[in-house]
Protein backbone atom coordinates (compact mmCIF):
# COMPACT_ATOMS: atom_id res chain seq x y z
CA UNK A 1 0.00 0.00 0.00
CA UNK A 2 2.66 2.50 0.98
CA UNK A 3 4.76 1.43 -2.01
CA UNK A 4 1.85 2.13 -4.30
CA UNK A 5 1.40 5.52 -2.65
CA UNK A 6 5.08 6.33 -3.09
CA UNK A 7 4.80 5.36 -6.73
CA UNK A 8 1.77 7.60 -7.26
CA UNK A 9 3.45 10.49 -5.47
CA UNK A 10 6.48 10.30 -7.74
CA UNK A 11 4.66 12.63 -10.15
CA UNK A 12 2.60 15.70 -9.23
CA UNK A 13 -0.56 14.14 -10.72
CA UNK A 14 -1.99 12.65 -7.51
CA UNK A 15 -1.44 15.84 -5.51
CA UNK A 16 -3.10 17.93 -8.21
CA UNK A 17 -6.04 15.53 -8.54
CA UNK A 18 -6.57 15.52 -4.75
CA UNK A 19 -6.55 19.32 -4.64
CA UNK A 20 -9.04 19.62 -7.51
CA UNK A 21 -11.27 16.92 -6.01
CA UNK A 22 -11.26 18.62 -2.59
CA UNK A 23 -12.01 21.99 -4.20
CA UNK A 24 -15.01 20.74 -6.17
CA UNK A 25 -16.32 18.59 -3.32
CA UNK A 26 -16.02 21.59 -0.99
CA UNK A 27 -17.92 23.70 -3.48
CA UNK A 28 -20.63 21.05 -3.80
CA UNK A 29 -21.03 20.68 -0.02
CA UNK A 30 -21.13 24.46 0.28
CA UNK A 31 -24.06 24.64 -2.12
CA UNK A 32 -25.80 21.68 -0.50
CA UNK A 33 -25.95 23.49 2.84
CA UNK A 34 -27.36 26.60 1.18
CA UNK A 35 -24.17 28.62 0.45
CA UNK A 36 -23.70 30.32 3.84
CA UNK A 37 -21.60 33.45 3.40
CA UNK A 38 -19.81 32.99 6.77
CA UNK A 39 -18.27 29.71 5.65
CA UNK A 40 -16.74 29.99 2.18
CA UNK A 41 -16.27 26.80 0.14
CA UNK A 42 -12.50 27.14 0.38
CA UNK A 43 -12.57 26.47 4.14
CA UNK A 44 -14.57 23.29 3.62
CA UNK A 45 -12.22 22.26 0.81
CA UNK A 46 -9.07 22.90 2.87
CA UNK A 47 -10.42 20.86 5.80
CA UNK A 48 -11.39 18.02 3.45
CA UNK A 49 -7.98 18.03 1.82
CA UNK A 50 -6.15 18.03 5.17
CA UNK A 51 -8.36 15.17 6.33
CA UNK A 52 -7.68 13.10 3.22
CA UNK A 53 -3.92 13.67 3.45
CA UNK A 54 -3.91 12.68 7.13
CA UNK A 55 -6.06 9.57 6.54
CA UNK A 56 -4.07 8.38 3.54
CA UNK A 57 -0.83 8.97 5.43
CA UNK A 58 0.54 11.30 2.77
CA UNK A 59 3.39 13.44 4.04
CA UNK A 60 2.60 17.14 3.65
CA UNK A 61 6.03 17.83 2.16
CA UNK A 62 5.41 15.20 -0.56
CA UNK A 63 1.97 16.61 -1.28
CA UNK A 64 3.28 20.16 -1.37
CA UNK A 65 5.99 19.24 -3.85
CA UNK A 66 3.40 17.92 -6.29
CA UNK A 67 0.75 20.56 -5.69
CA UNK A 68 3.38 23.24 -6.15
CA UNK A 69 2.66 22.84 -9.86
CA UNK A 70 -0.83 24.10 -9.21
CA UNK A 71 0.46 27.03 -7.18
CA UNK A 72 2.65 28.00 -10.12
CA UNK A 73 -0.57 29.13 -11.76
CA UNK A 74 -0.91 31.82 -9.08
CA UNK A 75 1.53 33.89 -11.14
CA UNK A 76 -0.53 34.05 -14.35
CA UNK A 77 -3.73 34.28 -12.28
CA UNK A 78 -2.41 37.39 -10.55
CA UNK A 79 -1.51 38.87 -13.93
CA UNK A 80 -5.04 38.06 -15.12
CA UNK A 81 -6.43 40.46 -12.49
CA UNK A 82 -5.11 43.26 -14.69
CA UNK A 83 -8.13 42.64 -16.93
CA UNK A 84 -10.94 43.62 -14.50
CA UNK A 85 -8.70 46.43 -13.32
CA UNK A 86 -8.54 47.79 -16.84
CA UNK A 87 -12.26 47.29 -17.43
CA UNK A 88 -13.14 49.38 -14.37
CA UNK A 89 -10.41 51.97 -14.87
CA UNK A 90 -12.95 54.74 -15.50
CA UNK A 91 -14.60 54.25 -12.11
CA UNK A 92 -11.29 53.89 -10.34
CA UNK A 93 -9.94 57.09 -11.89
CA UNK A 94 -13.03 59.01 -10.82
CA UNK A 95 -12.15 58.12 -7.23
CA UNK A 96 -8.40 58.52 -7.28
CA UNK A 97 -8.29 61.12 -4.54
CA UNK A 98 -10.21 59.27 -1.80
CA UNK A 99 -8.44 56.07 -2.85
CA UNK A 100 -5.06 57.70 -2.38
CA UNK A 101 -5.95 58.39 1.27
CA UNK A 102 -7.97 55.26 2.00
CA UNK A 103 -5.71 52.58 0.62
CA UNK A 104 -2.48 53.27 2.56
CA UNK A 105 -4.36 53.81 5.84
CA UNK A 106 -6.57 50.76 5.43
CA UNK A 107 -3.82 48.40 4.33
CA UNK A 108 -1.53 49.65 7.09
CA UNK A 109 -4.27 49.06 9.65
CA UNK A 110 -4.83 45.52 8.36
CA UNK A 111 -1.27 44.63 9.38
CA UNK A 112 -1.00 46.87 12.44
CA UNK A 113 -4.10 45.62 14.28
CA UNK A 114 -3.05 42.00 13.91
CA UNK A 115 0.55 42.54 15.01
CA UNK A 116 -0.53 44.71 17.94
CA UNK A 117 -3.07 42.16 19.21
CA UNK A 118 -0.67 39.23 18.79
CA UNK A 119 2.09 41.18 20.55
CA UNK A 120 -0.20 42.09 23.46
CA UNK A 121 -1.19 38.43 23.80
CA UNK A 122 2.47 37.43 23.96
CA UNK A 123 3.19 35.90 20.55
CA UNK A 124 6.79 35.05 19.65
CA UNK A 125 8.65 37.17 17.08
CA UNK A 126 8.38 34.34 14.55
CA UNK A 127 4.60 34.25 14.96
CA UNK A 128 4.41 38.04 14.66
CA UNK A 129 6.38 37.90 11.42
CA UNK A 130 4.03 35.21 10.09
CA UNK A 131 0.89 37.15 10.97
CA UNK A 132 1.92 40.60 9.75
CA UNK A 133 1.24 39.95 6.03
CA UNK A 134 -2.10 38.25 6.76
CA UNK A 135 -4.09 40.48 4.43
CA UNK A 136 -1.64 40.28 1.53
CA UNK A 137 -2.17 38.08 -1.49
CA UNK A 138 -0.25 34.78 -1.30
CA UNK A 139 2.54 35.28 -3.87
CA UNK A 140 3.59 38.57 -2.23
CA UNK A 141 2.97 37.43 1.34
CA UNK A 142 5.32 34.45 0.94
CA UNK A 143 8.14 36.83 0.04
CA UNK A 144 7.37 39.20 2.94
CA UNK A 145 7.20 36.41 5.53
CA UNK A 146 10.51 34.96 4.39
CA UNK A 147 12.10 38.40 4.59
CA UNK A 148 10.78 39.00 8.12
CA UNK A 149 11.75 35.53 9.33
CA UNK A 150 8.29 34.02 9.83
CA UNK A 151 6.82 30.61 9.06
CA UNK A 152 5.28 30.32 5.59
CA UNK A 153 2.95 27.49 6.66
CA UNK A 154 1.53 29.55 9.55
CA UNK A 155 1.24 32.59 7.30
CA UNK A 156 -0.75 30.63 4.71
CA UNK A 157 -3.06 29.31 7.42
CA UNK A 158 -3.46 32.86 8.68
CA UNK A 159 -4.26 33.91 5.13
CA UNK A 160 -7.11 31.39 4.99
CA UNK A 161 -8.58 32.44 8.32
CA UNK A 162 -8.19 36.13 7.48
CA UNK A 163 -9.90 35.65 4.13
CA UNK A 164 -12.78 33.78 5.73
CA UNK A 165 -13.07 36.32 8.56
CA UNK A 166 -12.90 39.28 6.17
CA UNK A 167 -15.71 37.87 4.03
CA UNK A 168 -17.89 37.33 7.10
CA UNK A 169 -17.14 40.71 8.68
CA UNK A 170 -17.63 42.67 5.45
CA UNK A 171 -20.99 40.96 5.11
CA UNK A 172 -21.87 41.85 8.69
CA UNK A 173 -20.42 45.37 8.54
CA UNK A 174 -22.18 46.29 5.33
CA UNK A 175 -25.49 45.29 6.89
CA UNK A 176 -24.84 47.19 10.11
CA UNK A 177 -23.65 50.31 8.38
CA UNK A 178 -26.18 50.01 5.56
CA UNK A 179 -23.55 49.98 2.81
CA UNK A 180 -24.62 48.62 -0.56
CA UNK A 181 -22.12 50.44 -2.77
CA UNK A 182 -20.26 47.71 -4.68
CA UNK A 183 -17.16 49.85 -4.82
CA UNK A 184 -16.90 50.04 -1.03
CA UNK A 185 -17.65 46.36 -0.51
CA UNK A 186 -15.10 45.41 -3.15
CA UNK A 187 -12.39 47.60 -1.66
CA UNK A 188 -13.00 46.31 1.86
CA UNK A 189 -12.90 42.71 0.62
CA UNK A 190 -9.75 43.19 -1.45
CA UNK A 191 -7.80 45.17 1.16
CA UNK A 192 -8.62 42.87 4.07
CA UNK A 193 -9.36 39.55 2.43
CA UNK A 194 -6.78 39.29 -0.43
CA UNK A 195 -7.58 36.65 -3.12
CA UNK A 196 -10.35 35.00 -1.10
CA UNK A 197 -12.09 38.32 -0.56
CA UNK A 198 -11.63 39.16 -4.24
CA UNK A 199 -13.30 35.90 -5.28
CA UNK A 200 -16.22 36.76 -3.00
CA UNK A 201 -16.35 40.28 -4.46
CA UNK A 202 -16.73 38.88 -7.99
CA UNK A 203 -19.74 36.93 -6.70
CA UNK A 204 -21.28 40.25 -5.61
CA UNK A 205 -20.70 41.84 -9.02
CA UNK A 206 -18.09 42.88 -11.59
CA UNK A 207 -17.63 46.35 -10.08
CA UNK A 208 -17.02 44.92 -6.61
CA UNK A 209 -14.60 42.45 -8.19
CA UNK A 210 -12.57 45.12 -9.94
CA UNK A 211 -12.36 47.29 -6.83
CA UNK A 212 -11.34 44.23 -4.83
CA UNK A 213 -8.58 43.51 -7.37
CA UNK A 214 -7.42 47.08 -6.97
CA UNK A 215 -7.54 46.92 -3.18
CA UNK A 216 -5.76 43.57 -3.13
CA UNK A 217 -2.96 44.58 -5.47
CA UNK A 218 -2.31 47.94 -3.85
CA UNK A 219 -2.39 46.42 -0.35
CA UNK A 220 0.13 43.87 -1.59
CA UNK A 221 2.43 46.48 -3.07
CA UNK A 222 2.23 48.90 -0.12
CA UNK A 223 2.72 46.16 2.47
CA UNK A 224 5.65 44.69 0.55
CA UNK A 225 7.29 48.12 0.42
CA UNK A 226 6.56 49.34 3.95
CA UNK A 227 6.37 46.32 6.23
CA UNK A 228 10.05 45.31 6.00
CA UNK A 229 10.96 48.93 6.80
CA UNK A 230 8.53 49.14 9.71
CA UNK A 231 9.89 45.85 11.03
CA UNK A 232 13.33 47.36 11.53
CA UNK A 233 12.05 50.25 13.66
CA UNK A 234 11.66 48.40 16.99
CA UNK A 235 15.14 46.98 16.42
CA UNK A 236 16.57 50.47 16.06
CA UNK A 237 14.91 51.68 19.23
CA UNK A 238 15.78 48.62 21.31
Amino acid at each position, binding site marked *: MSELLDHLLATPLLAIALTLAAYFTGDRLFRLVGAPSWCPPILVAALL*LAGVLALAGIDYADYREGAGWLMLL*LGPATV*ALGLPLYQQMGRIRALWRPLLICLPVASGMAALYAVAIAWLLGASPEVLASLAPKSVTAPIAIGITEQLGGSVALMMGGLLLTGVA*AIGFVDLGSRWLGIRDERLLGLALGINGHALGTVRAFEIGPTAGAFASLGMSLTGILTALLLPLAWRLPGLVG
Partner: protein
Amino acid sequence: MAVMRGFLWLLGFLLLGDVLVTLTGLPVSAGVAGMLLLTFWLMLRGTVSRDITAAAQPLINVLAMLIMPGVVGVFFILDTLSGQWAAILGALVGGTLLSVFTTLWLMRRLIGREEPGRE
Protein backbone atom coordinates in the same frame (compact mmCIF):
# COMPACT_ATOMS: atom_id res chain seq x y z
CA MET B 1 -7.07 27.79 -28.98
CA ALA B 2 -8.06 31.23 -27.75
CA VAL B 3 -7.43 30.09 -24.17
CA MET B 4 -3.90 28.94 -24.97
CA ARG B 5 -3.06 32.10 -26.89
CA GLY B 6 -4.41 34.18 -24.01
CA PHE B 7 -2.44 32.09 -21.53
CA LEU B 8 0.70 32.82 -23.52
CA TRP B 9 -0.06 36.54 -23.20
CA LEU B 10 -0.43 36.17 -19.44
CA LEU B 11 2.82 34.22 -19.20
CA GLY B 12 4.51 36.87 -21.32
CA PHE B 13 3.45 39.64 -18.94
CA LEU B 14 4.38 37.50 -15.93
CA LEU B 15 7.89 36.95 -17.32
CA LEU B 16 8.18 40.62 -18.22
CA GLY B 17 7.16 41.48 -14.66
CA ASP B 18 9.73 39.01 -13.35
CA VAL B 19 12.48 40.61 -15.45
CA LEU B 20 11.47 44.07 -14.25
CA VAL B 21 11.37 43.05 -10.56
CA THR B 22 14.69 41.20 -10.81
CA LEU B 23 16.47 44.06 -12.55
CA THR B 24 15.10 46.88 -10.37
CA GLY B 25 14.99 44.98 -7.06
CA LEU B 26 11.45 46.24 -6.33
CA PRO B 27 9.96 44.36 -3.36
CA VAL B 28 6.89 43.37 -5.39
CA SER B 29 6.05 39.90 -6.71
CA ALA B 30 6.46 39.18 -10.41
CA GLY B 31 2.72 38.53 -10.65
CA VAL B 32 1.75 41.97 -9.35
CA ALA B 33 4.30 43.67 -11.61
CA GLY B 34 2.89 41.65 -14.53
CA MET B 35 -0.66 42.62 -13.58
CA LEU B 36 0.18 46.32 -13.55
CA LEU B 37 2.02 45.97 -16.87
CA LEU B 38 -1.00 44.22 -18.38
CA THR B 39 -3.36 46.95 -17.12
CA PHE B 40 -1.07 49.62 -18.49
CA TRP B 41 -0.77 47.89 -21.84
CA LEU B 42 -4.54 47.43 -22.14
CA MET B 43 -5.00 51.14 -21.36
CA LEU B 44 -2.57 52.00 -24.15
CA ARG B 45 -4.36 49.73 -26.60
CA GLY B 46 -7.85 50.68 -25.48
CA THR B 47 -9.34 47.26 -26.14
CA VAL B 48 -9.06 43.70 -24.78
CA SER B 49 -8.52 40.80 -27.17
CA ARG B 50 -10.85 37.84 -26.83
CA ASP B 51 -7.84 35.60 -26.24
CA ILE B 52 -6.87 37.37 -23.03
CA THR B 53 -10.44 37.34 -21.71
CA ALA B 54 -10.73 33.63 -22.47
CA ALA B 55 -7.64 32.82 -20.43
CA ALA B 56 -8.01 35.40 -17.65
CA GLN B 57 -11.60 34.72 -16.57
CA PRO B 58 -11.22 31.01 -15.72
CA LEU B 59 -7.98 31.69 -13.86
CA ILE B 60 -9.60 34.43 -11.77
CA ASN B 61 -12.46 32.06 -10.98
CA VAL B 62 -10.14 29.45 -9.46
CA LEU B 63 -7.87 31.89 -7.62
CA ALA B 64 -9.01 30.50 -4.27
CA MET B 65 -8.16 26.94 -5.29
CA LEU B 66 -4.63 27.91 -6.27
CA ILE B 67 -3.66 28.87 -2.71
CA MET B 68 -5.09 25.66 -1.20
CA PRO B 69 -1.86 23.63 -1.35
CA GLY B 70 -0.12 26.25 0.79
CA VAL B 71 -3.04 26.82 3.11
CA VAL B 72 -3.38 23.16 4.03
CA GLY B 73 0.15 23.24 5.45
CA VAL B 74 -1.05 24.96 8.60
CA PHE B 75 -2.93 21.84 9.72
CA PHE B 76 0.40 20.00 9.83
CA ILE B 77 2.23 22.46 12.07
CA LEU B 78 -0.54 22.81 14.65
CA ASP B 79 1.41 21.13 17.46
CA THR B 80 4.45 23.40 17.03
CA LEU B 81 2.25 26.39 17.82
CA SER B 82 0.77 25.23 21.11
CA GLY B 83 0.55 27.98 23.70
CA GLN B 84 0.29 30.70 21.07
CA TRP B 85 -3.20 29.91 19.88
CA ALA B 86 -4.92 32.70 21.75
CA ALA B 87 -2.52 35.23 20.26
CA ILE B 88 -2.82 33.84 16.74
CA LEU B 89 -6.60 33.53 16.67
CA GLY B 90 -7.09 36.82 18.49
CA ALA B 91 -4.83 38.61 16.04
CA LEU B 92 -6.39 37.08 12.94
CA VAL B 93 -10.05 37.32 13.88
CA GLY B 94 -9.93 40.44 16.07
CA GLY B 95 -7.48 42.20 13.77
CA THR B 96 -9.59 41.46 10.72
CA LEU B 97 -12.78 42.59 12.46
CA LEU B 98 -11.18 45.90 13.41
CA SER B 99 -9.57 46.48 10.02
CA VAL B 100 -12.73 45.63 8.07
CA PHE B 101 -14.74 48.10 10.12
CA THR B 102 -12.03 50.75 9.86
CA THR B 103 -11.93 50.30 6.09
CA LEU B 104 -15.69 50.44 5.64
CA TRP B 105 -16.03 53.45 7.91
CA LEU B 106 -13.16 55.33 6.28
CA MET B 107 -14.30 54.54 2.74
CA ARG B 108 -17.84 55.58 3.45
CA ARG B 109 -16.66 58.91 4.81
CA LEU B 110 -14.39 59.58 1.86
CA ILE B 111 -16.14 57.91 -1.07
CA GLY B 112 -19.73 57.73 0.06
CA ARG B 113 -19.93 61.50 0.10
CA GLU B 114 -18.56 61.92 -3.38
CA GLU B 115 -21.12 59.58 -4.83
CA PRO B 116 -24.19 61.87 -5.22
CA GLY B 117 -22.30 64.68 -6.91
CA ARG B 118 -20.43 62.49 -9.33
CA GLU B 119 -22.81 59.93 -10.66
